[in-house]
């Protein structure tokens, strides 16, 4: 792990993580932002990356695995280019969130929790996104969409297919 060549991230991300180590009153606080930097670069966080960042922060790899697995936004396996996260919780359910999910499943030919074989789409049911005024809502990567219905889902997929 100590060989520079074995670093599983780019030198730019490596330097950015180094800069984080002195950003906070305690080095440990750098962990979550460091994990985000890795995920922004690679799309997910591999075991090698977890071991690498553990060495940077000065904690055990097991500790990092514990943190990564605790938070739903850290991915331990690659996700599709367009990650569609549909809200599952009550206000969205009342406005048809589950129908939106079913429509997406049938349009994409996958079930929730899966990724299309070509790696273009991942579909996830998530808990309240804090956007109940636009229920039923979803997030596509870092963009909020809603309120959704079958027609809007179809239009959204058309746009995403071109990206």
């Amino acid at each position, binding site marked *: 792990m100590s060989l520079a060549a074995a670093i599983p991230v780019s030198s730019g991300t490596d330097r950015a993580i180094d800069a984080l180590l002195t950003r906070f009153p305690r080095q440990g*606080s750098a*962990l979550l932002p460091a994990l*985000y930097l890795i995920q922004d670069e690679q799309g997910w966080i591999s075991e090698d990356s977890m071991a690498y960042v553990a060495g940077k922060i000065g904690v055990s790899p097991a500790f990092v695995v514990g943190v990564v697995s605790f938070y739903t936004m850290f991915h331990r396996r690659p996700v599709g280019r367009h990650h569609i996260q549909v809200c599952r919780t009550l206000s969205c359910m009342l406005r048809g969130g589950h129908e939106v999910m079913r429509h997406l499943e049938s349009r994409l030919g996958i079930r929730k929790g899966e990724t299309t074989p070509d790696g273009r789409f991942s579909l996830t049911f998530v808990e309240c996104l804090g*956007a109940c005024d636009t229920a039923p809502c979803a997030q596509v990567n*870092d963009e909020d969409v809603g309120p959704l219905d079958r027609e809007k889902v179809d239009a959204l997929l058309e746009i995403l297919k071109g990206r």
Partner: protein
Amino acid sequence: MAYEPLLLRNIHREDSRSIDVYLAHGGYQGLRRALKETTPEAMVEEVKNSGLRGRGGAGFSTGMKWSFLPKGLEKPRYLCVNADESEPGTFKDRLLIEKDPHLVLEGTILSAWAIQSRTAFFYIRGEFYAGERIFRRAIEEARAHGFLGTNILGSGFDLEVIPYRGAGAYICGEETALLESLEGKRGLPRIKPPFPAIVGLYGCPTIINNVETLANVTLIAERGAAWYASIGRPKNTGPKLFCLSGHVKRPGVFEAPLGTPLLTLLNEHAGGMLHRDRPLKACVPGGSSMKVLPAERCDVLMDFDSLAAAGTMLGSAGGMVMDSSTCMVAALLNLAEFYEHESCGQCTPCREGTGWFTKILRRLEGGQGRAEDPDLLLDVARKVEGNTICPFGEAIAWPVQSYVTEFRSEFDAHVARKGCPLAVAARS
């Protein structure tokens, strides 16, 4: 309505998030005046006298909370802004952060000054991508104008505000879980006491305040405690952001004085029920963790004490409205699944109890319910409530107790008819 919005006064302006627009409409005047004319101690008193109660859920006096800090300044003190808005049905802090970040930031600076904190953290839920970008920009703008950094406005006070993104965990809205997360750990709530005001972030005295609470501090600094206390009702003072979602015509965030009737918010602000032929069946007034009110008991005032008297709580003011088409077993199952997923797993009653709730409710909804199941739900809820490190235990026990008690016949009917009589099962 003669009420002039205070918290939402800027959100409809073009480019409302920019500091130029904020300054053009009186922004940072409260901070200027406070730093020039008063003292941190006086600011704490002012907030105490205003009657401001925390807008995050518990409704505790903000000034009182601040005064729990130890007197000496041997250790650094920290202010943590709780922008981890995750209570289902709640989306008010998001609106403030995205549309008027400087109102929140000014309140953050004022509060940090009042408690003499030189480093403040802005812990924002990871899903709020836009909010985080907008708030980061607001911090840069404020620094460029001398409202952040060293020797702010010549007062000798230094402050840095550090944004910190959560990563998807409801529990991190609980203040001690938030601190753990901020320290780069799993968000497991801490045993209290010691309270964060004594032992908080990095073992130092720490105050955690909600976004909307801090926006209210800006108003108090601008116009004073007496003016502020004249809004709302005794012991329930000030303006409030109310969220309404679910089966209403116009879901949204509405500002009104504390103590505004729920039915006024529902029928006037939110435009009434979504479907003309489907009357109100139930409303959760304060976010999914609070007890549900059946329609006949929705004639209540929306403030801390009135809702407590009605057997529920104002919570985060995330009102969820359900019409006559709603199956209350399905609604409760939806929430049980939420809490099962979000339980941090630290305490057995919560970790196991949420699983029991889900299992029992699934079989009720699926037609395999047993006659004893409604009582079994209540029994498990009794064993969860009060037996966990953090209020998450209550957050699921209360909905279970209230849905089963208030809509008992509907739960029994699921057993008798071997499934959902409403057959709206909008679930998969």
